[in-house]
């Protein structure tokens, strides 16, 4: 469904920016990201004047109680702000995770869902919907939404299964990992289809969840997402130096003193935590994790620290605006899933990119 780039198209352009320029790019992206989150609070079915929204946001962060309209406060502070922040962080997580997967698997076609994490999450969520856990009174009484929790559990279980499966098949070699991921994903997809065919009343819920998006997401989802995001981020930051070395191949890495197999496993877990948490709160959102690292590589080259930092920042911006588009493009407050928007925009854009590069080389 998604057009995949050719390997040969993946040689980095020779553009390697110097350090001050790089810093400027990252600072610019960070500023743009924060600005996007605030600007995103202005868009939605209810009209909110920019000035009033700014006052509400100022109240949130400055602490000064302003006498703003309570409905406005609810819309901006309790609905739009957490949603925008969540879409920013999920975009960042997907961009980061995709960059790491492409690096450790040394495969430009890898994305956060290559190892079946998304299918695991989808199965977890589908099972929860199928069993009707959303309407279990004591769970809702605790303020817990069981669907994202089940998705998260499913994602982690799938990852554990993939690593165990790859381990029995001769260590964590790259090919074995990818193969184990495909096998696990195929098996779980079959189980999802089974659930869909068994429970007719839950089909709509499952399908809707699978499309991915941020409709109705709020502080609860943000709270669920954040710990995994931070842990995954910390792991990746700690091992980003090794990632460059691993990109030269496992033998090279070992010759330089890197405990290649172990470090790769840590990075895999870090990137999968990000992917799992993203899927759990927002469903399967494609393209960001595949395309954003590619785009960044075209401009900044393949070094992992700048690549990952910029991929995270750009992924965040992309998803914030995709979600804005998703909730404003249809009339009467109807929404598109954000995953549909990213795929619809990302596909043609990437085709243009490939075409441009092919022509540039000719």
């Amino acid at each position, binding site marked *: 469904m998604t057009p995949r780039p050719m390997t040969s198209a993946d040689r*980095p352009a*020779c553009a390697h920016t110097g350090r001050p320029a790089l810093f400027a790019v990252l600072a610019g992206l960070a500023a743009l990201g924060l600005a996007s989150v605030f600007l995103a609070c202005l868009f939605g079915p209810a009209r909110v004047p920019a000035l009033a929204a700014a006052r509400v946001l100022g109240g949130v962060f400055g602490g000064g109680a302003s006498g703003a309209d309570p409905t406005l406060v609810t819309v901006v502070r309790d609905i739009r702000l957490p949603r925008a922040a969540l879409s920013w962080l999920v975009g960042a997580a997907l961009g980061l995770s995709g960059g790491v997967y492409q690096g450790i698997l*040394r495969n430009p076609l890898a994305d956060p869902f290559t190892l079946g994490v998304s299918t695991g999450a989808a199965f977890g969520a589908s099972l929860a919907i199928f069993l009707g856990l959303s309407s279990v009174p004591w769970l809702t009484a605790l303020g817990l939404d069981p669907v994202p929790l089940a998705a998260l559990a499913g994602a982690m279980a799938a990852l554990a299964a993939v690593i165990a499966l790859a381990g029995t098949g001769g260590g964590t070699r790259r090919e074995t990992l990818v193969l184990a991921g495909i096998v696990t994903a195929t098996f779980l997809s079959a189980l999802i289809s089974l659930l869909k065919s068994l429970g007719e009343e839950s089909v709509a819920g499952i399908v809707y969840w699978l499309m991915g998006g941020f409709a109705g997401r709020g502080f609860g989802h943000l709270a669920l997402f954040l710990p995994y995001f931070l842990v995954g981020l910390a792991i990746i930051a700690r091992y980003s130096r090794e990632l460059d*070395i691993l990109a030269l191949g496992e033998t090279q890495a070992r010759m330089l*003193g890197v405990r290649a197999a172990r470090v790769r496993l840590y990075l895999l877990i870090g990137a999968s935590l990000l992917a799992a948490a993203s899927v759990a709160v927002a469903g399967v959102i494609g393209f960001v994790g595949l395309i954003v690292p590619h785009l960044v590589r075209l401009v900044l*080259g*393949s070094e992992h620290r700048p690549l990952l930092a910029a991929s995270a920042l750009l992924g965040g911006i992309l998803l914030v605006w995709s979600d804005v588009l998703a909730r404003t493009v249809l009339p009467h407050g109807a929404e598109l899933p954000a995953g549909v928007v990213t795929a619809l925009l990302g596909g043609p854009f990437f085709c243009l990119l490939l075409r441009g590069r092919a022509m540039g080389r000719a």
Partner: protein
Amino acid sequence: MTRMTRMTGTTDTTGTIEAVDIVAGYPGREVLRGVSLAARPGEMLGLLGPNGAGKSTLLHVLAGIHKPRSGTVRVDGQDVFALGDRERARRIAVVPQRIEIPFGPRVATVALMGRYAHAPGFSGYGPQDEEIAADALREAGAAHLADRALSELSGGEQKRVFIARALAQRARVMLLDEASSGLDPARAIEIHDLLRRKCRQGAAVVIAIHDLNLAALYCDRMVFLKDGRVAAQGATAEVFSKEVIAGIYETTPELVRHPRLGIAQALFVPGADGDR
């Protein structure tokens, strides 16, 4: 550099790499069938032999990357396979053959990777590491490439970068797999001159090399591998003979003296296989 210039006593094993009775291979295929050799500080050892003789596998065993079925490898008198990864990389530096990479990091970063074994995990590379890596790039004649991506370099340029990375490791043992394959003669001479300089400074250098004449010009000693065994070894002047070369490569060369250096050089004769 100070560590490298320090002299060592003759019975001292510091800076020596030594393999004893190595039997190694891959599932279903034995590549090395009992190989022993040693390279001492200040010595350049040439590893020669026909394609498939086991040169690369032996280098991987010496590097502590490929575990042999039996036999031991010792560096500084210690079992290579008992050393921690960083510890091993501080003692042995490896220059690989050309490698394929889908994404290339910058050359400066590749040189810095040589410092990985010296830089503790959390703090990362320090200013001193950056300095050592920059020095290494200069020494290998690759300083002008520092900002280019590894994947866009030519084979010869890549080689220099990997040599710079090995120099940055400041290891006393250097292993090279075809240090000069694919390089023009001037580049090849430059690189081997550099390696000889490192030897003079106290490094033990082992090079797997196909070019017999280049090996004769630079190696103090030679080990000829054939079918996974040592077919001949000794000082270059002794083993570099018509008979030894004919026996190993199955074609008889003519030997001439280098007009300036007096070192034996082999000239191969077209259609010579039938003469034997």
